[in-house]
């Protein structure tokens, strides 16, 4: 555990050093991210606005939900970008080299890059939450508590996304086409999480509480923050669910590594 962390921090430092030459890219990517996030947010909000709220959720409440999803989704894009782009490890046998390293394969892969270009998601997600939260008056009385609750929500969400991106990468050990499976395991659920889950039929909702447990990463934390039912204790449940999901995903990863076939003979 400690070794893993030491290795991770040393590698992350190196990656950041190697990236200093791409400084301009950071601002560029922030700008393009802004366009994407704005477009997506606008569609989400316009839909809610057009129908005067969905199932008791106002436009700004949905905006908060969106910010929560964007920020936690950004965390995995920054720190687990190698898993997001895992195909190349499998297609040209790059994973061979990972397996000759004296550390957990997941740590070794993940620590190979920190994608600061994706920071835009986190920054914009937090900004969206701040704006929506202020308009909703969340920070008027117990600002610190609301802030802490949102932070815990982002943390729980990050764990859930990390679990999903790990699981879908591990599926690659069997199919070698990670990119084709990401829409179902990552992007679809991510879009779903930007709306109140109560809008979906039972089957979908069950899916989002179990196999693709995105409910614990955005919907449930948002319910707590917006005082829509569950008390703050539910946040602990969300964190627990996130940790459990990540543990299961890592177990699946280990199982997948056994089936890694390298390339050629």
């Amino acid at each position, binding site marked *: 555990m400690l070794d893993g962390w030491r290795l991770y921090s040393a590698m992350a430092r190196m990656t950041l050093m190697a990236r200093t030459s791409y400084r301009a890219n950071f601002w560029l990517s922030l700008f393009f991210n802004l366009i994407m996030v704005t*477009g997506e947010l606008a569609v989400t909000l316009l839909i809610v606005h057009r*129908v005067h709220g*969905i199932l008791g959720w106002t436009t700004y409440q949905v905006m908060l939900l969106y910010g929560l999803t964007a920020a936690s989704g950004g965390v995995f894009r920054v720190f687990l970008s190698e898993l997001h782009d895992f195909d190349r490890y499998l297609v040209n046998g790059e994973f061979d080299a990972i397996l000759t390293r004296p550390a957990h394969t997941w740590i070794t892969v993940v620590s190979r890059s920190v994608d600061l270009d994706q920071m835009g998601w986190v920054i914009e997600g937090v900004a969206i939450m701040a704006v929506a939260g202020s308009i909703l008056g969340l920070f008027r009385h117990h600002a610190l508590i609301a802030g802490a609750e949102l932070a815990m929500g982002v943390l729980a969400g990050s764990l859930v996304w990390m679990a999903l991106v790990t699981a879908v990468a591990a599926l690659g050990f069997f*199919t070698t086409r990670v990119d084709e499976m*990401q829409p179902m395991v990552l*992007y*679809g659920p991510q*879009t*779903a999480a930007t709306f109140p889950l109560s809008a979906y039929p039972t089957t*979908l909702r069950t899916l989002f509480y179990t196999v693709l447990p995105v409910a614990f990463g955005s919907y449930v934390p948002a319910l707590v923050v917006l005082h829509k039912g569950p008390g703050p204790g539910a946040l602990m449940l969300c964190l627990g669910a996130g940790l459990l999901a990540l543990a299961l995903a890592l177990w699946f990863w280990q199982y997948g590594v056994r089936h890694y076939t390298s390339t050629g003979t």
Partner: protein
Amino acid sequence: MFRTHRRRPSIWYNSGSVTLPRGGRTTGVFFFVARASFRKNLAYVGAHMANNAGSFLFGLIYIALWHAAARGRTLGPFHAHELVNYIALSQAVLWVSVFLPSGLDMAQQIRTGSVAMEMARPVPYVPRMLAAGVGEAFYNLVFRSGPLVVAFTLLGVFPWAAFAMGKGLMVAVALVMAVLTGVLFQYLIGLSAFWTVETRWARRLFLGLSVFMSGQLLPIPLMPHGLEQVLTWSPFQTLVSLPVSTWLGAERPSAWVAGALWVLLLYLGAYGLTRRAQRRLEVQGG
């Protein structure tokens, strides 16, 4: 450079596994190019089905949303069940216009320098790459849109009833325009590799804008008034809104005019920029 090659009849042309024998007609070449793009995808049908399941999930999410949100109401020109139909259609159409291979693999050609050789082939470059794109779109129509249409039909949300016979031709024309617009956009994204290091920004910009401007999730007539006016005249509306609205009988004449104009403009743009790129290539010596 372009013109001199055009005068010569094609000799040998290789694309994937297709070899056109001596004396092939230029129009025939485009068919072979398209067919090669179609065929090269056949090896990945299995993997693509997983992606289809993702598209289906997307569709389900938005269908559920509109179902819950509109519930028996009429919004703009659409009744609640038509909005559900709209999403099902939109998910199928996206695959032939928006979700085409990024930059038609031109970025790769440009990075490796093989583009100089490709441009020197005896068949004009722009229409040839467009033909490759059309081949991709046709593959997507059969193996991406097809399964989605089946799935949505089984779910009972695919609007077969709205598809009257007389409308068939109109829908077909709208779809062709959607494909052409989508392929032209990808061509321009690929061509941008001549001037920028990475094409992924152009690709993201295109995807980001199309979420909002093509009407894929929120139909354009349901947008606030000013925005609606602007978006009706954008090239993005041809990608999804035009064919889907035509199918549902809710399109406006202005959408047709805008769509046709943009296909022309994008083609001219592609042609002009390609010539500039060629000149650049000659200056740099490949």
